[in-house]
């Protein structure tokens, strides 16, 4: 989706500003949003790609005006309603008006450490050989799917070189839409910065992780 989250190369946001005392959270609600988001993610009702899709489908003007944890909260609310775990009336009022959805795997306190240590590796066994190898010239596809993808707009339809092959990984474009993991070969593609930006750049090269369906022979 060509949403407001796809920020690479946009101009006009001003300088990168650091905060003098950089607290991890600005307010208590931010740490609560982080924790609730992680806890609900651990129930397995949805996956990380669905979470990202929920956040980036916020209308652009809303996405850009929200702080980061606010975006997380909006994404979480959307997923709760979409998956039937709660109704909008419930999330607004905080009162339980419908029975809990069955089969939700609650993350208990004594399971947190193990769950975080395990994480969610995305490497899968490859079922087909890789189409490309290190050193191959490739071109990214020109594509504009209305659903989740991890190929940023600034590097679509561009020439690059494969610099790493990472094995077959869960494919976000299908994983986000409920069509399953459909693992695809994952590569790191190096683009000369001038291929992406012309002369208007101070970068030498930009490296982007690209799944095989994002690529074609040049």
């Amino acid at each position, binding site marked *: 989706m060509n949403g407001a*989250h796809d*920020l*690479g*190369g946009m101009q006009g*946001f*001003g*300088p*990168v*500003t*650091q*905060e*003098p005392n950089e607290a*991890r959270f600005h307010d*208590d*609600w931010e740490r609560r*949003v*982080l*924790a*609730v988001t992680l*806890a*609900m993610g651990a129930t397995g009702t949805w996956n990380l790609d669905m979470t990202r899709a929920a*956040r980036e489908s916020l209308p652009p003007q809303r996405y850009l005006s929200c702080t*980061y944890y*606010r975006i997380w*909260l909006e994404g979480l609310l959307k997923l709760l309603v979409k998956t039937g*775990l709660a109704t909008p009336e*419930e*999330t*607004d009022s*905080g009162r*339980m008006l419908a029975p*809990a959805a069955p089969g939700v795997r*609650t*993350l*208990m*306190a004594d*399971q*947190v450490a193990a769950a*975080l*240590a395990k*994480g*969610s*590796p*995305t*490497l899968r066994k490859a079922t087909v050989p890789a189409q490309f190898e290190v050193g191959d010239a490739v071109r990214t596809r020109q594509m504009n799917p209305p659903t989740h993808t*991890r190929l*940023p707009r*600034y590097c679509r339809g561009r020439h690059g070189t494969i610099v790493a092959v*990472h094995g077959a990984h*869960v494919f976000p474009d299908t994983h986000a839409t409920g069509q399953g993991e459909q693992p695809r070969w994952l590569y790191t593609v190096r683009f000369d*910065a001038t291929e992406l930006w012309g002369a208007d*750049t*101070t*970068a*030498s*090269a*930009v*490296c*982007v992780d*690209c799944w095989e369906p994002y690529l074609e022979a040049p």
Partner: protein
Amino acid sequence: MSHDHHHEHEVEGHDHDHPGSELSDMDLRVRTLESLLVEKGYVDPKALDVLIETYETRVGPHNGARVVAKSWADSAYRKWLLEDATAAIASLGFAGRQGEHMVALENTPQTHHMVVCTLCSCYPWPVLGLPPVWYKSAPYRSRAVIDPRGVLKEFGFELPAGTEFRVWDSTAEIRYLVVPLRPAGTDGWSEERLARLVTRDSMIGTGLARSPAELPEEVA
């Protein structure tokens, strides 16, 4: 380096911009949601406390600093880290969520690496903790891929004109850790002492490691 110009922007883009009801509104909204999820049995409130405690106190850039210091001090470890960062980092006890697949990028006098996630906020949690606000902000996400030299300057650093700037956009589940250049004058230092030179920003590529002269006196 000067941070003076940062002060006027320090609250930019935060709910602090809207004094008054916004903060309490958000507190209330999140508490409301939390109590609903607890009542429904989806969330164990004690698990929330453990999650917060983990990322607020246990996981942070001190982990990554240990990895970098070891790679500076131990050439066999450095080789392992560059070949299989996931295993080399896990050997120090750092693994798991948002660090499942690690790649280490070693800065050299010729090449400087900088890491960004233009699409969201992908960041190697086990070694660096939660990302700082600026890493998730529109200015950084938009500019790092097109003007990394300008970004580095805003952090107070400049590199020689001929330095190759290579930017890594974390679009998949591969997480990148920059190994900064080892500062001069640190021969024979222990890993513990070297780790004090390694800043968080130097492991993102928006900074350089401290020189020995920059170490606070009490720990030098």
